[in-house]
C-alpha cells in the first residue's frame, strides 16, 4: 500500500503506456482480424455514421439550392423565389439523373459479370489519411463475408476485410496493405498490384524482360482467389526501366475514382480451387 501511494502516478503512467504498446505490438504487421469487439462496434456506430452521412447530404442539398439564393434583391424576390424553386427542382432532377446513370452502370456491370452481386452504399470513410478503407451498408445478413471482392462499373474497388450483420469494411485497392494478382492485358505479363497512395498503385514483380508500356490496361488475373479474372484495375502511368534489380518499377493509375465513391457492388464470388 505504501509503494502504491508513493509511486501511484508513475505506475499508472507506465501501465497506460505499456498497455497501449502491447496492443500495438499484438496487431502490428498482422493481417486484419475481425474481432467481436470490432464487429459489435461497427453495428453500433454504423447507423450513426449513416445518419451523419444522410444529414450531411441533406445539408449539402440545402446549401446548394437555398443558401446560394439568400442575397436575392428584394425587388426581384418573387421572381427569385420562383427561380429558386425551379433550381431546386433542377438540382433534384440532376441528382436523380446522376443516380439513374450510376444505377444503370451498376446494372450494366451486373450483366457483364456472371457472379451473384449485391449493390451497397458507402456510408463512411477512413478517419486517417494513411489508410484507405470505407464502410458500406451491407453485412453478413446480406451474404457479405471477409475477402469478398468489391467492384464498381469503372473497375476494382477492393475487398471486404470485416463484416458485421449490417455493415462491412472495405479495404480499398489504394491502401498500402492491399494487393491483387494482375496481368497486363496486351502482353499478358504477370505482376502484383499494391496501393501507394490515394491515386497511385504500384505494379510489382514484373521482370525487365516483360513487355509493359505506358497506357497498357491492367486487369485481374483471377489467380490469387479474391478477385475474379478480367476486371479492370487501371492503366500504366509510368514505367521506370532505369533502376537496378531484376524487376521494373511500374506505376498504375487506378480506374476507379476513389474520391467519388458512392455506390459499389459486392461480388458474392468465391473461387473454387477444385476447378
Amino acid at each position, binding site marked *: 500500500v505504501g509503494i502504491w501511494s508513493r509511486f501511484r*502516478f508513475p505506475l*499508472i*503512467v507506465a501501465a*497506460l*503506456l505499456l*498497455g*497501449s*504498446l*502491447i*496492443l*500495438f*505490438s*499484438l*496487431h*502490428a*504487421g498482422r493481417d486484419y482480424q475481425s*474481432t467481436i*469487439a*470490432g464487429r459489435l*462496434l*461497427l453495428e453500433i*456506430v454504423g447507423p*450513426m*455514421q449513416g445518419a*451523419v*452521412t444522410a444529414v*450531411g447530404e441533406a445539408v449539402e442539398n440545402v446549401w446548394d439550392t437555398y443558401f446560394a439564393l439568400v442575397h436575392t434583391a428584394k425587388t426581384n424576390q418573387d421572381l427569385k423565389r420562383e427561380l429558386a424553386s425551379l433550381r431546386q427542382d433542377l438540382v433534384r432532377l440532376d441528382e436523380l439523373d446522376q443516380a439513374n446513370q450510376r444505377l444503370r452502370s451498376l446494372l450494366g456491370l451486373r450483366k457483364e459479370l456472371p457472379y451473384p452481386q449485391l449493390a451497397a452504399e458507402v*456510408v*463512411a*470513410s*477512413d*478517419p*486517417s*489519411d*494513411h*489508410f*484507405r*478503407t470505407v*464502410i458500406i451498408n451491407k453485412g453478413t445478413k446480406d451474404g457479405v463475408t471477409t475477402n469478398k471482392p468489391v467492384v464498381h462499373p469503372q473497375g476494382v474497388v477492393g475487398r471486404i*476485410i470485416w463484416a458485421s450483420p449490417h455493415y462491412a*469494411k472495405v*479495404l480499398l485497392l489504394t*491502401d*498500402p*496493405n492491399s494487393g491483387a494478382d494482375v496481368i497486363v492485358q496486351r502482353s499478358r505479363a504477370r505482376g502484383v498490384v*499494391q496501393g*501507394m*497512395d*490515394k491515386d497511385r498503385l504500384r505494379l510489382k514483380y514484373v521482370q525487365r524482360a516483360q513487355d509493359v508500356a505506358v497506357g497498357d490496361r491492367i486487369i485481374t488475373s483471377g489467380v490469387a482467389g479474391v478477385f475474379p479474372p478480367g476486371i479492370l484495375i487501371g492503366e500504366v502511368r509510368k514505367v521506370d526501366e532505369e533502376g537496378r534489380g531484376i524487376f521494373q518499377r511500374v506505376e498504375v493509375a487506378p480506374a476507379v475514382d476513389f474520391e467519388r465513391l458512392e455506390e459499389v457492388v459486392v461480388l458474392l464470388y468465391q473461387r473454387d480451387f477444385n476447378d
Partner: protein
Amino acid sequence: LLAATALLGMILVVLSTTAFAWWALGPFRLQPLVILAVAAGFRLPLFSGGLVVFSLGYLSDLLGGGIVGLQVTALVAVYVICALAERKLEVNTWPLQMLAVGVMTPLFLLLVLLGLWLVYKQNPVRPDTSAVILAQAVANAVCAPLFFAALRAMVRLIDRFWPQKRSREA
C-alpha cells in the same frame, strides 16, 4: 467531466469518419481526438482519464483501417505528457491549452508516422511534409476552443439530465 469526455469522444470518433473526412484537404485534416486527449490530460484524474483516452483511441483504430494500437499509443502518450505537464505547470487557461494542442498535434502525428515506419519498413508509407504537419498543428490549436466549448456544453447537458449528481457535487 469524465462522462462528457467519453460521450464527446464517441461523437468525435463518428464525425472523424464522416464529416471531418469530407472536409479534409488531402492529408490536411482536423485531429479532434488529440484536442480531447490534451483537455483530458489537464482536467481528468490520471487513471480514469487514461482509460477514456485509451478507449477512444481503440475505437478510432477499430473504425479506421490502421493498425489497432497505433492511435491508442499516440493518444495515450499525448495524454500522459499533458498529465505530467499539469503537475508541474499552471496550464489552466484556454490560450495555454491551445498552445499545448499546437505542440501535441505534431507529436501525435510524428508518433503515428514512427509507428507506420516501424511496421512498413519494407514498403514505407508516404510521410506527411513538415508543412502539412505544421498546418495541422495550427488548425488544431485554432479550432481547440470550439472543442473545449463543446466539452463544457456536454458537461452542462449531463448535469441537466442528472441533477442529483450536480447537487451532490454542490
